């Protein structure tokens, strides 16, 4: 019974501007993880490797990367099916036109690749343009005379919370595709989008390529047998990403740092959002916070969405007759009259800074 390893969205050679100087390490990590996937495909008894789009981040990957990918794939004894995605689309300058890959690159619309030894056929439509709005499942039907029909589709399954216009994959189309398995690509988190009798999964990116991709880091292990299609996530990523919402109400700066440090992990990209109501005069210097905690994380990004406790201004600590009280009230008016969220945030930060200075805190 065929055993498939399904990956997608490796996005080799992507720039990672959000990581700053760490981007180089992450690109190297992506290359290593892809090689690890190929190694796993070879050693764990898989019969077929499916890459459902965006193997490369662009059609201009680095030659060294191309050489490494090509070499890794050449060493595989099992067949590989590569579907061009929106990042590495099959256009006039496609990387797949310039480089000869050892195995099956899906270039025809549709492409059908049969594997008689596996009694299996793989179907797919390559993405021809980065802005393609075509349905990735169009014209795909289980036409080959084999037992197992597998499709690759790089696009967006419709979801009520998403306004999908590019590469839309309708759920009905999935359900009526007649495929045993649809290997989905484009989304970076492992997810089940099976419809009716059709098993469909996003394998997700093997490593996160942005903050917030909490479901990244997996490949899909797909086993087809008479009992049905079994799909399991297989962890391959070394880097994880997580989001932490920290209510800092009543916290001092030291306590905030301590709370974040509790999540310390050198392989973790952590996005911290500070919320809650901070005491007046609490200045949150995110630059300093990130710098202090940076050695504890792969990457740390902090966002301050906390607000100063404006109710405190009315209370006795800030009599209007004192500068501190007058300042607090003037700033409160600024905050309330702010015309944008950005303006409001700056006014809130000014309030906190001013109060801190007037309370004699060393915040500058």
């Amino acid at each position, binding site marked *: 019974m065929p055993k498939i390893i399904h990956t997608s969205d490796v996005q080799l*050679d992507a*720039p*990672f*501007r*959000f*990581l*700053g*100087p*760490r*981007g*180089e390490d992450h*690109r190297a990590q992506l290359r290593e993880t892809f090689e690890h996937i190929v190694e796993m495909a070879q050693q764990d008894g898989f019969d077929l490797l499916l890459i459902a789009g965006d193997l490369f981040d662009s059609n*201009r*990957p*680095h*030659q*060294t990367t191309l050489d490494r990918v090509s070499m890794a794939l050449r060493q595989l004894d099992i067949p590989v099916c590569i579907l061009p995605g929106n990042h590495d689309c099959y256009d006039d*300058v496609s990387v797949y036109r*310039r480089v000869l890959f050892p195995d099956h690159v899906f270039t025809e619309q549709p492409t059908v690749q049969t594997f008689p030894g596996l009694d299996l056929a793989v179907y797919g439509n390559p993405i021809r343009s980065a802005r393609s709005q075509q349905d990735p499942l169009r014209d795909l039907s289980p036409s080959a005379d084999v037992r197992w029909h597998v499709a690759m589709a790089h696009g967006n399954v419709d979801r009520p919370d998403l306004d999908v216009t590019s590469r839309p994959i309708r759920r009905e189309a999935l359900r009526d595709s007649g495929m045993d398995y649809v290997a989905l690509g484009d989304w970076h988190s492992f997810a089940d989008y099976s419809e009716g009798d059709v098993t469909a999964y996003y394998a997700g990116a093997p490593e996160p390529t942005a903050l917030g991709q909490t479901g990244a880091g997996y490949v899909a292990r797909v086993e087809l047998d008479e009992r049905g299609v079994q799909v399991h996530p297989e962890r391959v990523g070394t880097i994880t990403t997580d989001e932490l919402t920290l209510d800092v109400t009543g916290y001092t700066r030291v306590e905030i740092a301590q709370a974040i440090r509790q999540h310390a992990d050198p392989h973790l990209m952590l996005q911290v959002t500070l919320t809650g109501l901070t005491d007046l005069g609490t200045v949150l210097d*995110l*630059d300093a916070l990130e710098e202090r905690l940076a050695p504890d994380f792969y990457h740390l990004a902090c966002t301050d969405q906390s607000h100063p406790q404006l109710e405190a201004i009315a*209370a*006795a*600590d*800030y*009599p209007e*007759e*004192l*500068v*501190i*009280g*007058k*300042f607090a009230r*003037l*700033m409160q008016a*600024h905050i309330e009259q702010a015309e944008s969220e950005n303006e409001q945030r*700056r*006014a809130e*930060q*000014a309030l906190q*800074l*001013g109060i801190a*200075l*007037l*309370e*004699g805190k060393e915040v*500058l």
Partner: protein
Amino acid sequence: MYLKRIALKRFGALDQQTYTFRPGLNLIKGPNEAGKSTLQAALLFGLFGNPQHTTLQRVKHVDDYTSWGATGSFHITLDIADGAETTYRVEKDWASGDARLIALGSDTVVTGVDAVQQRLNKMLGYGAVKIFQSTACVEQNAVDDLTAGQRTITDQLQRIVTGGGEAKASDALAKLEQEIGTLKKGWKTFAPKHPGPIKRQQDDIARLEERLSTIRAQVRQAEDAGERLGDLEAQIDDLTEKLKARRALRASCDRRFELEDELEERKAQEQKLEARVAQIQQLQEQLVGTEEASRAGGRGQSRLPWITLLGFAAGFLLSLIGLAIGLLRSSVLGLLVGLPGLLIGAGSFVWLVIILVRSQSGDPQTTLRAKLDALLEERPLEAWIEERKEASRQRRDLEETLAEPEMQQAAQVTPVEYETLKQEIARLEEQLEAKEQERIRQEARRDDTTYTLEDVHRLEEQKAAAERALERLKDRLTVYELTYEVLEQAQQETMRSARDELEPKIGQHLRCITHGRYEQVEASDDLALSIFSAEKGSWIDADDGELSRGTIDQLYLAARLALIDLLYQEAQPPLLMDDPFVTFDPQRRQAALRLCREIAQTHQVLFFTCHDGYDGIATEVIAL
């Protein structure tokens, strides 16, 4: 309002202690370590503390004031009389975190920490312990620091009007101004030698951008060259294939021409050989016939030379005889004998010559043989036959070769087409040469840079980080500028308002305290005080050291009272004085105490001291 009583449980050394106060000047007296500071802290906890918090203003920690060995935190009960002479009992329990306020003599009970504190704040005027401390609490060295020149009254007032702490609004503004100046240094203005962080960041970004632009162009050029090389290689392959095909066709044509020539030669040779063999065979047959014929009449022919020789000899002999006769006897006779001899000899000679000539050329057998020998060239006939067969075979081979498809295809090429083919080959060779040259150029372009896409990404990431940092710096500057702008406005408005209100109030209190000696006070926008000296007939700056220490004490306390009026309005919180005149000389101390007594007319004063000698002026003396 005034405090009537405080009862303490588990509060430091004052466990289970109760103290009763009266309106006016309450003297709380005891030696060092008797618990005066503890009682002051208890009063602050009682008036402002939150039983659910472990600290008071994050400074005084509950654990530090809980009695040793106590099973729980402390409990404070305060009886407070408000202006309407209603007494409220406030109970705060840090063990349970509860608070309760009871209006004694009525059913009014307020529970809950926040609700109780709200009622208390209303009576006190403010719930801020810091403001209470900065106004209603006069610490031990406050007055002494003024006269020692360590602080000025203006400083003190500014600090209090700023926020009650140690900071001054003017200091905060100065710090902000400095930070703003540092941040903006060289930005949008002339760039100094050491620009500020924003300018530096901008310069870094510009440098990165410039470098990125250069490297990106080089990488793009290398990539373009790489792509062009890919195309070129395909074109070169195509041209090479075409050229190869054309050259092959031309070679076929050339080969065909050669083969055709060779075939003609072979054919001619074959014909010659065939003719020769035929001739040989014919000659051989003729020779056989001639030999048979010569065997039949060969004898006569063989004797013929002998006859001629004999004739020649006879003629020669007769000639000799005729000569001899002619010489010896008669020339006529000699002539008659010698002449026939000469004739016979000559005739024989001629005959011999004829025979010899005939024997040489005119003999058919000999001629045939000679011909045959010439044709055979010392080789047997079989060799010539074999050679003819070989020539035939070669001719057939050539014919077969020419019949092959390649030669047939070449046969289709007309001479005009052949000429066109030659021209096409020359053109393709030219094109190929040009492409090869182009490939060398593109390889040079590709190899012209050591930078790669990785370098571009790295720089882009550095630039993105620098841009984020710049944005944050600009945000910070915006926040600083906004803070400065609003703080300056707040300071100006507050100071102006405080000046307007404090000026008359300080004057009132000063007149009261000094029994009319001083009554005119002026305050500047930054609360620098001057008082009018009737004796000198001029204004004296409070901070310039001309005033006597006593006058400074009076002015300072008058200012404190004015501030209390300003901040607390109708509410008149008790004043806590922590032996503020301890360092005064006796005369000055007496003056200061009189001042306190004056103040106590309107405000309850709790005066903490370790000295005797004040009892006479106190309304109530509480010994610790």
